[in-house]
């Protein structure tokens, strides 16, 4: 396995008037191809900043991001990014939102419709193709966003607390769907969360971030797959990991 995404000395400052806020400092991390990395951290530790940098949306103040051994200079269509907030176009129905990445790529409309219909079916939104985002519930919008990201068929998925705002049941379903997808497609996933259980349920490897992106713990998770949330909870290995991660998070807070 080779490093697909690699950051070295990554620093991001946001300047406001004469003061710069440092969101991330000297952050170095390598992500292997095909791995599922959960990035765990409390809010405000630079997780979203990190993903924006990995996605090529913002430029680092210092350091660089390398994707496939090339410096990343802007958004790359091979990298899909599911942001924390919904960015569906409110004037487009579900189907036309899902078609959008293909539209920009110049895929013919018949093909677009076919791909979109398949994805909409897959995320369980069949029957709502022509609903506008405002007519959908938060969970349904999330599914539509997921479908839109998958329409571009990205090899790398960046996800920023994608299921944070959903109810527990729905979160569980979408987590399982994501794992199924990953198992089939072999994508590389960077999944940001503040939920220890979610990190352990999904990740091969958990990176715990402290303030301004200091790595508190970087640990492989060797729990057997497929993992079920209910079975995990009583697994001694899981409990041990959970304790370890919780301690690391507490450590960072001090």
């Amino acid at each position, binding site marked *: 396995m080779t490093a697909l995404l690699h950051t070295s000395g990554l620093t991001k400052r946001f300047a406001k008037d004469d003061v710069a806020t440092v969101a991330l400092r000297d952050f170095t991390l390598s992500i292997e191809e095909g791995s599922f990395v959960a990035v765990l951290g409390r809010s405000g530790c630079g997780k979203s900043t990190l993903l924006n940098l990995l996605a090529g949306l913002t430029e680092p103040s210092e350091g660089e991001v390398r994707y496939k051994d090339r410096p990343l200079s802007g*958004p790359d269509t091979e990298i899909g990014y599911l942001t924390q907030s919904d*960015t569906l176009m409110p004037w487009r129905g579900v189907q036309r939102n899902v078609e959008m990445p293909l539209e920009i790529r110049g895929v013919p409309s018949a093909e677009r419709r076919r791909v979109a219909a398949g994805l909409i079916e897959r995320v369980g939104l069949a029957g*709502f193709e022509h609903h506008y985002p*405002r007519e959908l519930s938060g*969970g349904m919008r999330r599914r539509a966003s997921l479908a839109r990201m998958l329409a*571009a068929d990205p090899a790398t998925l960046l996800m920023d607390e994608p299921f944070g705002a959903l109810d527990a049941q729905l979160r569980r379903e979408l987590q399982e769907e994501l794992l199924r997808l990953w198992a089939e497609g072999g994508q590389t996933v960077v999944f940001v969360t503040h939920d220890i259980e979610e990190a352990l349920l999904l990740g091969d490897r958990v990176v715990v971030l402290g303030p301004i992106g200091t790595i508190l713990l970087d640990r492989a998770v060797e729990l057997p797959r497929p993992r079920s949330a209910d079975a995990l909870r009583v697994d001694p290995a899981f409990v041990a990991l959970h304790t370890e991660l919780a301690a690391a998070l507490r450590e960072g807070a001090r």
Partner: protein
Amino acid sequence: MSTTDDLLTPAGRQEGPVRVALPRTWWQRHGSTTTVWSLRLALLVLLLGFWQLAADRWIDITFISKPSDIAERLGEWAADGTLWLHTWITVQEIVYGFALGAVTGALAGFVLASLSLVYRVLDPFVMALYSIPKVALAPLFIVWFGIEMHMKVLLAAATVFFLVFLNTAAGVRDVDRGLVDAVRLMGGNRWHIARKVVLPASMTGVLTGLKVAIPYALIGAVIGELVASNRGLGYLINDAAAQFDTAGVFATLVVLSVIAAVLNVVVGLLGKRVNRWKPIDE
């Protein structure tokens, strides 16, 4: 649990909202609209009746005329063609002025607001020009363009331009960064962002501008006619007032209101088409 017969969603999908056909009677569908319209009509009849009654009984007819005289005057003018001639002139001025102002305003707003630095530089100048009462421009426009139709068209356009420009620019500048980033992530270039995000997102602003500007197109055209002209509804008002023909003045005002109402309906229809994605009414 309801039976699956009345569910419009495909069978087996139980999560998320379920859509159910809602049988409604004619009155439930149209009841409130009917009530509102009947009340509007009743109010109009009441006002006209009171006016008719008050005229010459309590208030001198020279000042307020009366509905029956006004109707009579409209009938006369319609018969001898005066009405159509002048209305047609004014309508042309409004439409050309509105179209000219709206197109240039929307284009300028779209382009300038996308160029952040240019917009910042120009902003105070635009605001200064916008704040000039357009009536004050009329004498200058007469010098520049004469007293023919061009002058009224341009005066109407000048008013419309600023309203559409400012609203469009506000719409463009308010575009959600998240949506722009979403398109960048899909590999979209500047052109994609402009066409697929900024343009639809700014439509609300453009439409607000158009809606607000409509009465001003009318005002611009009529003021131009009032200042200097020999045709058009503004001229008709001037002419009637000069002869103390109050009925004539009111008759012209009626025509102007009808024109304004028709224009509002047109923009309303446009707004419905573009803003379908706004939250639906209960």
